[in-house]
């Protein structure tokens, strides 16, 4: 392990597709490479649209991932 542990938090439908609300991963420099890996590993993820937050901040577009960072996968909710 190279110490670049990333914590992935999944919400709503994304958590269902991942089968877990929390995952650990390592070796990803940016959100694009992390997303590619997630989509490869969990093909059902293509059925869900979601936004991304890195270290509790919403991000748009590819974003660099630092050491020990936390990436949240945030699908919209519609229910009321």
């Amino acid at each position: 392990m190279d110490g670049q542990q990333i914590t992935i938090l999944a919400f709503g439908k994304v958590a269902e597709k991942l089968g877990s609300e929390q995952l650990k991963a390592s070796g990803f420099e940016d959100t694009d490479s992390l997303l590619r890996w997630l989509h490869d590993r969990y093909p059902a993820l293509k059925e869900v649209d979601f936004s991304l937050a890195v270290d509790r901040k919403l991000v748009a577009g590819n974003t660099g991932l630092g050491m020990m960072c936390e990436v949240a996968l945030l699908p919209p909710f519609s229910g009321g």
Partner: protein
Amino acid sequence: MTADRFDRQRALPGFGAEGQFRLAAAKILVVGAGGLGCPALRYLAAAGVGRLGIVDGDVVAPSNLHRQVLFGVPDIGFSKAERAATALQRDYPDGLHIDVYPHYLTSEQALDTIRPYDAVLDGSDNFATRYMVNDACVLLNKPLALGAVYQHEGHVTLLNAPDGRGERGVNYRDLYPKPPGQGTIPNCHETGVLGILPGVIGTLQAAELIKLLSGYGETLSGKLLYYNALNNRFWTLALPAAGVKHRDIPVSEEAFRKTDYAMQCGASPQITWKEAMEILSNRQATTCAVDLREMHEYPDDVLMDSLRISLEDIDRDTHRFKDAEVVLIFCQNGYRSQVATILLGRVFPGKSIYSIEGGTGHPDAPTQFSQS
């Protein structure tokens, strides 16, 4: 001053008579008197908001009662907007004015409905309404308390709120620029929801507007709060101002009125049983009917020679639709068939694919389904 129903609120340091006075002058529109709207309306009315508008075109159903707490068994079958207004007017006959809109919000009347109010609370249950209400609030400069739930999770924020320097806070499109296809995200009709969850989220939405309009405390503007009822986790993230103007927000009120939010949100084309039976009676080789019901759902009723495919396989068994030009899809209640219509539409953008409204449970469904 004699004690009244707001005494304990006025006594709150930082709230005081001034906060109460501001609430009495406040006008809030609540879109949707459902799982989120009911608790929100209860607290807004109890807190002393002077004017409340209630928009809902639906009627009370037995399956609503575990979460839509302004209603009881005697309300079943009656307008939600009217019954909610009746309950609140009965409980708070003093100083509360209620406007009842017993119909759904549409892009034709949304702006005129929202315009007289100071702020809006979104208690709707579908993306088309959520994007429409967001865009209307951006055009009209109205703060919007957003709340939404999914099974055991919910989120809440205050959108489009003034920041004190004349700038507006983030809106829904900063968070989710494009509406998802409605087929990808089911709402509470299909997925089930813990009754208390919209109670928590709707109450938090009401708290946001009470704070904003009374000037008390700090709001969630620029932050999104998640609540997970299963593990009691509250989680907040920052929503930085995107600083971009979203191309998809209509540029003018006129453009807004012409926007079809249902289509933007991937509403699937639907037809009635009557229309479907007509198409099937002049049946061509290029028309195909698809029965999505699982084996445990009345396996003996098969509409003519329909294909039986489960929703899970619909976009995998694509060879079965290769030669069809028109595909009519039905299920037991009309929800899964909408999802299937969207999935199949992505694979075959050239085909005419329809979901049959209401499924086999609909009164107009062909008679072989009637015993089901």
